């Protein structure tokens, strides 16, 4: 009977196409659509702050260099992972992440909570020459980041695109994006104060690459790495391994 039916189906290309579409759509619809409507999918985190323009620029460098190929940003709900990397990751922690960078492979360690674990100086030295800091490392060197001036002019466009997708950047944040990026890495400049004003007192304003007169791609990337896992304390409040977030190293 089924075979008889199939022999009929095989005789019409359009019918076959429709049958394929029908069979192939069910799984995706059932698994993906509810993720947008079920409240429990993403937790509440009222203290969650946004990426500053400098951190967003740093994130885009992380994306550009394909760091996700070797580093995950997703601590699984397994004892050894929580003990090695910190509280397991919550969905809310990546709610503004486009794309998400959960990764699929750990040639290097997970970075979901790397922020504050090492000093800026360590990160800069490590990115310039990983083997100078960790002799057995197989990570590529990113020497040129410290030499490359960060392109800040387009940052308002980036924030605007993000806002169009639902990230709550204000008009003031968008207008001042380039100045804020500069200010966050030059603590003595006139632009430094506005950053904390717009993004919160917890924002880290300092010369990430050690040079306070120029904003480089190194500044941006280190600023991003130093904020990873620190946009909200939700993971320390709600999970099995709750506790105080550790004091950051600068």
């Amino acid at each position, binding site marked *: 009977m089924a075979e008889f039916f199939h022999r009929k189906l095989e005789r019409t290309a359009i019918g076959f196409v429709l049958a394929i579409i029908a069979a192939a759509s069910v799984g995706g619809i059932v698994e993906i659509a509810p993720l947008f409507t079920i409240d429990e999918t993403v937790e509440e985190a009222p203290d969650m702050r946004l990426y500053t323009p400098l951190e967003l620029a740093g994130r885009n460098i992380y994306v550009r260099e394909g760091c996700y190929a070797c580093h995950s940003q997703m601590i699984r709900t397994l004892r050894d992972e929580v003990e090695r990397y910190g509280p397991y990751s919550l969905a809310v922690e990546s709610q503004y992440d486009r794309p998400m960078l*959960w990764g699929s492979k750990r040639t290097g360690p997970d970075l979901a909570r790397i922020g504050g674990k090492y000093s800026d100086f360590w990160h800069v030295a490590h990115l310039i020459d990983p083997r100078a800091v960790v002799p057995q490392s197989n990570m590529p060197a990113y020497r040129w980041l410290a030499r490359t001036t960060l392109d800040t002019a387009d940052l308002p466009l980036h924030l605007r695109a993000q806002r169009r997708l639902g990230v709550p950047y204000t008009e003031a944040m968008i207008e001042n994006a380039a100045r804020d990026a500069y200010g966050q890495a030059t603590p003595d400049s006139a632009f430094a104060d506005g950053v904390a004003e717009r993004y919160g007192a917890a924002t880290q304003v300092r010369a990430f690459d050690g040079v306070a007169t120029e904003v480089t791609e190194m500044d941006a990337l280190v600023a991003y790495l130093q904020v990873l896992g620190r946009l909200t304390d939700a993971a320390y409040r709600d999970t099995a391994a709750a506790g105080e977030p550790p004091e950051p190293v600068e």
Partner: protein
Amino acid sequence: MVAALTSAERQSAAVILLVVALAGLAMAILGGTGPLGVHGVLVMLFAGALVAVVFAGFYAPEPTEDRPTRYYDDPIKVGIALTMAWAVFGLFMGLWVAAQLAWPSLAFDAAWSGFGRLRPTHTTGVIFGFGGNALIATSFHVVQRTARARLAGQVSPWFVLFGYNLFCLLAVSGYLMGVTQSKEYAEAEWYADIWLVVVWVTYFVLYLRTLARRREPHIYVANWYYLAFILVVAVLHVVNNIAIPVSLAHAKSYTVWAGVQDAMVQWWYGHNAVAFFLTAGFLGMLYYYLPIRAQRPIFSYRLSILSFWGITFFYMWAGSHHLHYTALPHWVQTLGMTFSVMLLVPSWASAGNALLTLNGAWHRVRDDATLRFITVAAVFYGLSTFEGSFMAIRPVNALSHYTDWTVGHVHAGALGWVALITFGSIYTLVPALWQRQRMYSAALVELHFWLALAGVLVYVFAMWNSGIVQGLMWRTYTEEGTLAYSFLDSLVAMYPYYIARAFGGLLFLLGALVGCYNIWMTVRAAPHAAGRAADAPQPGGAAAVAGE
């Protein structure tokens, strides 16, 4: 290739290329000195080179009247050449990045040649460059022969083939400049993605129109798989790549999906790219070239039906097994795991159907390296689908995820299944297309087979070892209840396996180079065979078949 087109078709080809070149010009103007501008120039050069080819043959004599009585094989021939070129490129990039993991100084301290930028050139090069061209070329061959009708377009097959390769070129060159969405296996940016949609819709229409011309009442099983491949990949590609660019002058875009939803959409895409690109399409290849080469009919029609609909339905649920123990809701993980295990039934039905087809032809498997390529591919298909279902089980995944075991699994599928079935199909196809009696050298096919098999085995065993060692080291505790190894300890333990893996990749690349030489010499020097009289479309034009 231009000589086979009428002057009207030559004109429309020129017009299409002009439009493409203008799009490139617009990109170049908007993008300025940024990567979008560079890509605009690349598009203009690509279109310009093809315009030169069209104009060189523009005033050649018109094709003869009997054109519709022959199959349209020129695009297939070019497609095979491109397949082999991308194989060499993609495998070489794979070897390079593998070597970088063992010897990181091989990045030469430049921005474009770091692991993170090169790795997607390898994955895109082999999956889309090598695999995609192989699928397009063989689908053009299979649909014509099984429909007994000529392709339903003269210019559109070229548009599909060259348009697709332009996409691959934009993708790969973009990664070197840092243009990437960092979405695994969907790294290409928005403008390349839009271009691929145009190409893909053309491909789908061409395929359907050719099927509509068929002189056989039934659509042969290989075409079911090619159809599913074309259709579902289109859906996956569009949904996963919806993004808004920073501006029309920027290569960079932001995806509409964020966080956990992005993760689910990405792995729904990622896993089904494996299912419908790397499995369905290549099963289409298997269902045609295996019976041809073994000279045996497919063992069971019913198993074909079962496995086709099982794969089409079950696979789409399985993607969430990439997200076990993550912030993805538990119920979605459980669904993904359950369907991944059930997927073993249709997968083994396909593999079993292939191997049972060989009953009565095992002596050919022994003597004919080409058939052995196809046979071993079916075995690897069975093994890696079993391994995939196994790794999707949550506690197993706890050990395997994030480790090289996943990498080993992917390569058992990509090298053992996809690449071997492709080489077997190409060795069947090349003598038939160029009307040679046989491949130039059977000994070289044999050599390629053993290099490839040794390469896969070395690779997969190295990655099994490294993955399991790594996973175990991460979760080993001391008697005092503290973690026994630092992350660095686990990395140091990987180096011997990374060297072994690079060696396996080298063997596989050498095999592909031997294959290129053999194909080249077959076209150049193998003895000519008279075309088989039956290898022509059924006369009668596009008349309707009963029931259509």
